[in-house]
């Protein structure tokens, strides 16, 4: 059981079974870790904004760094028009980042290593961006699929290609996050297994790898949250400013 590297991804029920209209809505370990990540975010931001000093305390500094980071990212990639969407992108980034980081702790569960979680986030972003595009530009938003300066003979083919390219956004967005998290955690577990099976004699090499990989995984956890947020900004930019 413990040597199976995929065991860490299993979802099980905590507490009683809850079924509403035939859908299993029980509280699982995945839900538990989502609650933990969300409350950690709330706690840090609450403590960080409680006292507003000119010379910030450490926790205030952390929350201000997060704020500045996202605000800068939005203004750089999507322009000033995207300012109203700051709360959404901020909570999205923080949620993915904290789910990834909480997953790095031993004996914890990585919520973002399940495709259903990341796909749902990505589909929500996809639908939201499409709705924003149609609200801002009306049917002119469909111009996104018809690039200018294309010969009429090629236009149907190009349009189909553009539509597939547009539809592939949520897939690439969700698969990237899920695959990175799952591959990383499986690799860590496999190297951990090597340490045990090679014993005191040969176990030092995989142990060293494990330490290095943990560092790499922390980088990946941050980077994937960043990529998730910045791609949302780019899609938002396409919807708001209507050009590639």
């Amino acid at each position, binding site marked *: 059981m413990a040597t199976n590297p995929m065991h860490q991804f299993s979802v099980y029920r905590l507490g009683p079974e809850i079924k509403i209209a035939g859908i299993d809505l029980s509280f699982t370990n995945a839900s538990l870790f989502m609650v933990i990540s969300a409350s950690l975010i709330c706690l840090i931001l609450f403590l960080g904004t409680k006292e507003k000093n000119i010379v910030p305390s450490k926790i205030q500094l952390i929350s201000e760094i997060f704020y500045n980071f996202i605000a800068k990212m939005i203004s750089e990639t999507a322009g000033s028009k995207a300012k109203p969407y700051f709360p959404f992108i901020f909570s999205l980034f923080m949620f993915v980042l904290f789910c990834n980081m909480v997953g790095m702790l031993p004996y914890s569960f990585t919520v973002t290593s399940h495709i259903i979680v990341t796909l749902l986030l990505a589909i929500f972003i996809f639908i939201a961006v499409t709705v924003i595009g149609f609200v801002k530009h009306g049917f002119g938003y469909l111009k996104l699929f018809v690039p200018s300066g294309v010969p009429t003979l090629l236009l149907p083919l190009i349009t189909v*290609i*553009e539509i597939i*390219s547009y539809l*592939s956004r949520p897939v690439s967005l969700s*698969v990237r996050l899920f695959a990175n998290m799952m591959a990383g955690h499986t690799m860590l577990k496999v190297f951990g297994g090597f340490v045990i099976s090679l014993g005191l004699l040969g176990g030092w090499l995989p142990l060293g790898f494990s330490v290095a990989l943990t560092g790499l995984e922390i980088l990946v956890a941050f980077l994937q949250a960043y*990529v998730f947020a910045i791609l949302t900004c780019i899609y938002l930019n396409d919807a708001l400013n209507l050009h590639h």
Partner: protein
Amino acid sequence: MPDLKDFKTRLKIANSKIKKNLQSNNSNNGSFMGFALKLGTELVAAVVVGTIIGFILDTWFDTKPWLIIIFFFIGSAAGMLNVIRTAKRIQEKD
């Protein structure tokens, strides 16, 4: 007050350092790495989506296996388009 003077000079030094950093570090490396990681999945995702669309249309119109073949290639084209677009975006930042 010697303390205040000291603080002022330190402030000046810190400010000039920030200015220098801003000038030299306009393009941040984090987003580069983000874009580079984006390329691979971008290509695969479009092929997958194209093939799935082909499969669905095939079962609708009962034309197996023609549409799945056509849409596989269209999906590949869309994937390459995605990659080229991302690469262009990286160049613009450069």
